[in-house]
């Protein structure tokens, strides 16, 4: 999130779209309600009337998978009525940038951006015009037909309310009501906030959903201000932290792009990854990339290797290769893996197209399941439809400690790193994950030392300074994440401009002191300043709020450098005056900035554009770097109920990662769009009582008692048509699988009027799995739940098709049928 949970209280309008925080982020509603108490308007846009909708002033239904059409209509409304925050748009976005005249918009190019060939985009026509010195050409009057602003206008001119309503199924009056209310936050002293989650990401246009809203936020001047921003409500308490620390294949910790095979040297890597700019006032923060890459390599290998050797040891991915979730399980299915660690995960229930995932596991020689409980993954070989006598996979279960049985930090959605203490000892043989990992590492290292192996130094030379009496000490890890000086060093303080002397072994005070010469380490540069000579910042529990707007800067620590609202340099005008005088985030006191830790802003009037993480210093209305286009364009979900995209001849995102094409995936990767066998839209979601696949919550009797099993929510109209009664057992089927569920018949789901056709939608939670049911077979050593749950995973239904940028599967819009149980 750009802002943080407490900051929701500062919003004047809160848009809940692609999320259901009342159910799934219940504590967030403390702050939502505080905003409402102060007069904020709460808007909920969702295919289903949710618990969040129940608390909203305005509820607008929309067909799942049509968010870009909905938001495109909002952008058009803002532009047509000239409601933009002009000062902000001109100074802080790329609205004035001029684009290559050869660029073609989908409106004039059959639904495609220019440059599409052989299944992907050549982006050369998307580039900016530059002058002889390489500086981007601009028109600050925003009138040039090739300016981003005019292109934006042209692009969304097609998204009129009539057409948007025909695509989304949202009544026109509701669209206009939402647009009107939200656009009011263009006033400099009004803040609009967006709360989204998997309802936006899990689509084949997932990234562009969020881009569309970012454009809205920029046009209205809502980024960087109190009560504004874009909030990704994370699906796990520490998913922010795990992403920050390099969980994903394409990034090292701190969002440093993973090196590829074509970058053989550290210099080649740094050259490729360090952006340059010709914009004279732009700070271009990523110019510091070599300092962060060098410090990261030092955290990996310490002084056991030179920087160049350390870079050599680090794994590179093949150019163009992809190791995202869908690809991994596709490859596993095809026999590309012999072994697999399922660590704190339950892919047999959480993975899209779970049948394929479960089958893929049968191809493994071995699997290690690290978890608190056995689950559908560890026991996949004895799950529904499996014949254990024909499965070769050997499974090892390693019990791990739960979050309250170990010490360490988590980073919440608001980027707060918060230290937690151990409350109780882990039971039995269970150990903290890091201890399990350390034991494995030390054994592997020992084997390499004894037996050798290719590039053995990559393992044997790793620095591993975390052990304390045979156990991992989390403080030592936290300190290394922050970073040390590895040699005595004199560094100029970048703020005070005076020399400071540091001793070898001293903690680095902040990333501004990190070096590219190997004299510093930092396991994750954005966390540098979290654990310093002053102590463990994340363990702080100060409750003073000097900011006056709920910043609480002495409570824990937030990255970067304890900044609570990022992009806050855009909360003040170019002369340094806060746009919102009631809730200033930073204030110039004549000598320095006070309030939040300033972001990107120079001294007032310096002319420095505040979005310093972008090479050109401004935020992107136009985003030429993405795989599927510089502007978000509406495309239908891969599985959808209508024959045509009403907006253009191009039905689906042309660069979707799909596995159903000949020669790409497997025989299991089937899709059924506009198929009369699967006439209803389906979406997956969560309930308050369960978490993820329910591996933790299904075993808690109180939670299982409240939500005891798989259900499907069905609209009253559809239930009447099909003769379903509430409480009755039905079967939900897709082209890939089926799952039994109890019908909840409710007026909270209504059919959508899509271009004159009534289209029904149903919805299913994805927390359940066969391992905790009453009807499965329990062996003598199997733990039985006190309260059984019913049903298997909703992901038996979901498709293996993904967003072209993130490759996240499209679990929020696919097609199913619902029949009474036992009826074909």
């Amino acid at each position, binding site marked *: 999130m750009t802002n943080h949970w407490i900051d929701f209280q500062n919003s004047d309008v809160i848009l809940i779209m692609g999320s259901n925080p*009342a*159910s799934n982020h*219940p*504590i967030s*509603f*403390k702050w939502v*309600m505080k905003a409402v108490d102060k007069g904020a308007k709460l808007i909920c846009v969702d295919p289903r*009337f949710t*618990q*969040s*909708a*129940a*608390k909203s002033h305005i509820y607008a239904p929309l067909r799942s998978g049509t968010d870009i059409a909905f938001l495109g209509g909002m952008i058009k409304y803002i532009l047509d009525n000239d409601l933009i925050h002009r000062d902000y748009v001109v100074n802080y976005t790329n609205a004035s940038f001029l684009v290559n005249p050869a660029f073609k918009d989908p409106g004039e190019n059959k639904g495609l951006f220019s440059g599409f060939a052989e299944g992907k985009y050549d982006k050369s026509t998307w580039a900016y015009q530059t002058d002889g010195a390489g500086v981007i050409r601009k028109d600050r009057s925003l009138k040039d037909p090739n300016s981003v602003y005019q292109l934006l206008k042209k692009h969304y001119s097609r998204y009129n309310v009539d057409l948007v309503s025909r695509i989304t199924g949202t009544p026109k009056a509701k669209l206009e009501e939402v647009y009107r209310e939200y656009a009011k936050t263009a006033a400099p002293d009004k803040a609009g906030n967006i709360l989204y989650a998997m309802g936006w990401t899990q689509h084949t246009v997932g990234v562009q959903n969020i881009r569309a809203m970012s454009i809205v936020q920029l046009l209205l001047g809502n980024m960087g201000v109190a009560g504004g921003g874009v909030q990704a409500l994370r699906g796990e308490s520490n998913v922010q932290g795990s992403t920050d620390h390099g969980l994903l294949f394409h990034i090292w910790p701190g969002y440093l792009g993973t090196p590829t095979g074509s970058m053989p040297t550290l210099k080649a890597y740094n050259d490729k990854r360090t952006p340059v700019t010709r914009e004279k006032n732009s700070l271009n923060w990523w110019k510091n990339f070599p300092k962060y890459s060098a410090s990261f390599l030092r955290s990996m290998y310490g002084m056991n290797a030179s920087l160049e050797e350390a870079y050599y040891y680090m794994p590179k991915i093949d150019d163009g290769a992809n190791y995202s979730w869908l690809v991994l399980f596709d490859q596993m299915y095809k026999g590309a893996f012999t072994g697999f660690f399922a660590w704190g995960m339950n892919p047999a229930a959480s993975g899209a197209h779970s049948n394929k995932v479960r089958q893929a596991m049968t191809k493994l020689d071995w699997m290690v399941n690290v978890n608190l409980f056995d689950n559908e993954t560890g026991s996949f070989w004895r799950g529904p439809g499996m014949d254990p006598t024909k499965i070769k996979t050997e499974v090892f279960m390693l019990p791990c400690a739960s979050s309250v049985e170990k010490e360490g930090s988590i980073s919440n959605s608001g980027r707060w790193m918060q230290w937690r203490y151990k409350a109780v000892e882990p039971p039995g043989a269970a150990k903290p994950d890091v201890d399990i990992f350390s034991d494995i590492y030390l054994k592997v290292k020992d084997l390499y030392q004894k037996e050798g192996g290719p590039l053995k130094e990559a393992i044997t030379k790793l620095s591993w300074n975390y052990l304390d009496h045979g156990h991992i000490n989390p403080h030592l890890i936290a300190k290394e994440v922050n970073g040390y000086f590895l040699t005595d060093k004199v560094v100029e303080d970048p703020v005070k401009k005076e020399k400071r002397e540091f001793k070898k072994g001293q903690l680095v005070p902040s990333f501004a002191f990190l070096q590219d010469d190997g004299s510093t380490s930092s396991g994750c540069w954005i966390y540098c300043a979290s654990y310093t000579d002053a102590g463990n910042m994340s363990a702080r529990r100060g409750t003073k709020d000097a900011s006056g707007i709920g910043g609480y800067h002495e409570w824990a620590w937030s990255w970067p450098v304890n900044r609570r609202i990022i992009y806050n340099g855009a909360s003040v005008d170019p002369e340094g005056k806060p746009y919102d005088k009631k809730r200033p985030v930073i204030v110039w006191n004549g000598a320095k900035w006070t309030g939040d830790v300033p972001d990107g802003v120079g001294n007032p009037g310096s002319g420095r554009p505040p979005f310093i993480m972008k090479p050109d210093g401004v935020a992107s209305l136009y985003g030429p770097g993405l795989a599927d286009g510089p502007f978000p364009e509406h495309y239908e979900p891969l599985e959808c109920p209508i024959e045509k995209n009403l907006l253009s001849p191009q039905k689906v995102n042309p660069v979707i990662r799909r596995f159903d094409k000949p020669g790409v995936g497997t025989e299991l990767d089937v899709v059924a769009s506009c198929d009369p066998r699967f006439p209803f839209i389906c979406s997956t979601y969560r*309930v*308050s*009582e369960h978490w993820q696949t329910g591996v933790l919550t299904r075993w808690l*009797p*109180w*939670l*299982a*008692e*409240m*939500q*005891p*099993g*798989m*259900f499907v929510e069905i609209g*009253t109209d559809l239930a009447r048509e099909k003769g379903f*009664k*509430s*409480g*009755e057992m039905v079967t939900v089927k897709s082209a890939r699988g089926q799952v039994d569920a*109890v*019908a*909840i*018949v*409710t*007026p*909270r789901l*209504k059919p959508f009027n899509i271009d004159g056709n009534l289209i029904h939608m149903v919805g299913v939670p994805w927390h359940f799995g066969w391992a905790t049911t009453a009807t499965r077979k329990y062996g003598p050593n199997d733990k039985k739940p*006190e*309260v*059984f749950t*019913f049903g298997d995973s909703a992901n038996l239904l979901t498709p293996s098709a993904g967003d072209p940028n993130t490759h996240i599967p499209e679990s929020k819009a696919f097609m199913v049928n619902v029949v009474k149980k036992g009826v074909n």
Partner: protein
Amino acid sequence: MAEKIKLYDDSKCTACRGCQLACKQWNGLKAKQTKNLGTYQNPPTLQANTYMIIRFQDVEDDKGNVKWLFRKDACMHCTDAACVQACPTSALRYNKEFRIVGKDLDRCIGCKNCVAACPFEVPKYDHETDKVYKCDMCESRIVNNMIPACVKACPTGALQWGDKDVMMKAAAKRVKELGGDANIYGDKVVGGTHLMYVLKEKPSVYAGLNQNPHVPYSVLLWKNLLKPLSLLAAGGVIGGSFLHYIIHGPKTPDEDGQGSQAEGGK
């Protein structure tokens, strides 16, 4: 100590059910096997092992506008509490300090007079222990200066605990803010309840909410006339059976089994 009440504001309740879980945790109440009956609401009603539930209710007007109403269902802690008056052994009794209805399970003889007397269908009989259970407003917490567990768990401010006069002012202010049909429920019935609601809709909209709760006449008769006599004569136990007879006829073995089984089973 001033009289205190718990105030529940349904317009702020998100039905996250943190309260329902906190109640089970503080009171050490075991979960029972449930099944989905076509609603999020579970267990479906109050039970001997469930002192409070959040009720879920879909409401649709004739124009197709939908509301999803949530209501905390638990002991209302009446000032004029039928259960206390009906209880022959003072197992249910007023807490003099807070005026809530506390319980002493050791004294409960399982006569179920309270079950029959309660206008809100709150006390629940458990066949296994032959005792009756209900919310006691976390008496063990409030006498130690802690707030009730459900209030502690509530993230949105839908539940508050405080001095009655302060809470009543807050309730009145909230009703004014909400406008429309918003109202306070509980202040004008059974001498004033100690779980009070701010309801966004008219009370008649909420399923299962007694519009006109009162102490049954049979209980009044018992309390005012027969109880003093019977206590003099033979002690509460016999008197209790007598009241039971007045209210719902002779005690039969069948009826005993119903309490827990009818509501979710074992």
